[in-house]
């Protein structure tokens, strides 16, 4: 079993910690697990195992990174939802910017829809629907926790409650700002356009910008309580 010469404990520890981090185990938790790993490995070495054997057995006894992450998550379900909602809020920001670039800055969707016979209000509503397409997909990924795992790796430094609060505040501010600008834009056009069409457009805008907050509320109050495990 022994390949003592090629075994680098520090390298293996770093690799193991990286696996834990990828699964969402926090640094403070990993520190304690590492302390345990050292204790366990030292004990095994006292019984005659070499450094490499002791490391691998101690690591195996602690459990796999996904299992450890799952156990920490089960012990604190509220934390999982804090993180999911944080990422949902952060993603909302990204979506809003994307929608603005797509919806206002790029006219090719309008042209495309126009070329297939959709004009005026219908063209506008269809364009808004196109821009909304990714949101349900993102909502499902957030609810399943899949997106969290990807984002946890990409944006590890931003996983504090303060960051979450900042992102949420910015999200709300951006949403209100975008909605306000949109309403102002259409109210300016009221004098020049058909009143019914303008009202439909305003209603459409409100629906577009309400979809994501409503999705978040559904996730928070609909799914979270069912997933919360019973207290031991």
């Amino acid at each position, binding site marked *: 079993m022994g390949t003592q010469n090629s075994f680098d404990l520090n390298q293996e520890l770093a690799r193991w910690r990286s696996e834990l981090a990828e699964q969402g185990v926090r640094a403070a938790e990993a520190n304690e697990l590492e302390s345990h790993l050292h204790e366990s490995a030292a004990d095994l070495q006292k019984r005659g195992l070499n450094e490499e054997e002791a490391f691998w057995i101690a690591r195996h006894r602690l459990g796999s990174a996904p*299992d450890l992450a799952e156990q920490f998550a089960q012990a604190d379900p509220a934390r999982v939802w804090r993180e999911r909602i944080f990422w949902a809020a952060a993603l909302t920001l990204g979506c809003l910017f994307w929608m603005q670039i797509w919806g206002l800055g790029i006219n090719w969707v309008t042209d495309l829809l126009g070329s297939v016979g959709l004009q005026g209000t219908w063209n506008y509503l269809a364009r808004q629907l196109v821009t909304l397409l990714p949101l349900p997909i993102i909502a499902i990924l957030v609810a399943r926790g899949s997106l969290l795992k990807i984002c946890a790796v990409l944006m590890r430094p931003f996983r504090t409650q303060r960051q979450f609060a900042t992102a949420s505040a910015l999200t709300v501010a951006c949403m209100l700002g975008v909605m306000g600008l949109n309403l102002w834009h259409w109210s300016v056009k009221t004098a020049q356009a058909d009143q019914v069409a303008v009202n439909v457009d305003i209603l459409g805008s409100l629906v577009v910008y309400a979809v994501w907050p409503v999705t978040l509320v559904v996730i928070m109050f609909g799914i979270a309580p069912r997933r919360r495990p019973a207290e031991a």
Partner: protein
Amino acid sequence: MISKDLVAASSRPLILSILAEEGESYGYAILQKVRELSKEEINWTDGMLYPVLHRLEREELITAAWKEAETGRERKYYRLTQPGRNALKQEREQWLTVHNSLAKLWGLKTVSI
């Protein structure tokens, strides 16, 4: 071997009781103590202990502090708080009530609560 459900349910009173007896202790030592007390019948996986310890810490039943061990490495030591002692008292009463009920059914000696 004790069933998984019973292992999970007994983790809380076991940890609180060990900390009450030892004064302060750390994860690895708690795990060893449980194995020793149960003669390996209570089979805790190493990783399951820490989420339970962290939950007890969040509930303010125990406190934790990193200290340097005799090996020179840092260890996180846990200690029981006053609410932890109260919780242990309640746990003790509940577990002994269950124990006495079963003891009566099985014709064994009961213990005073």
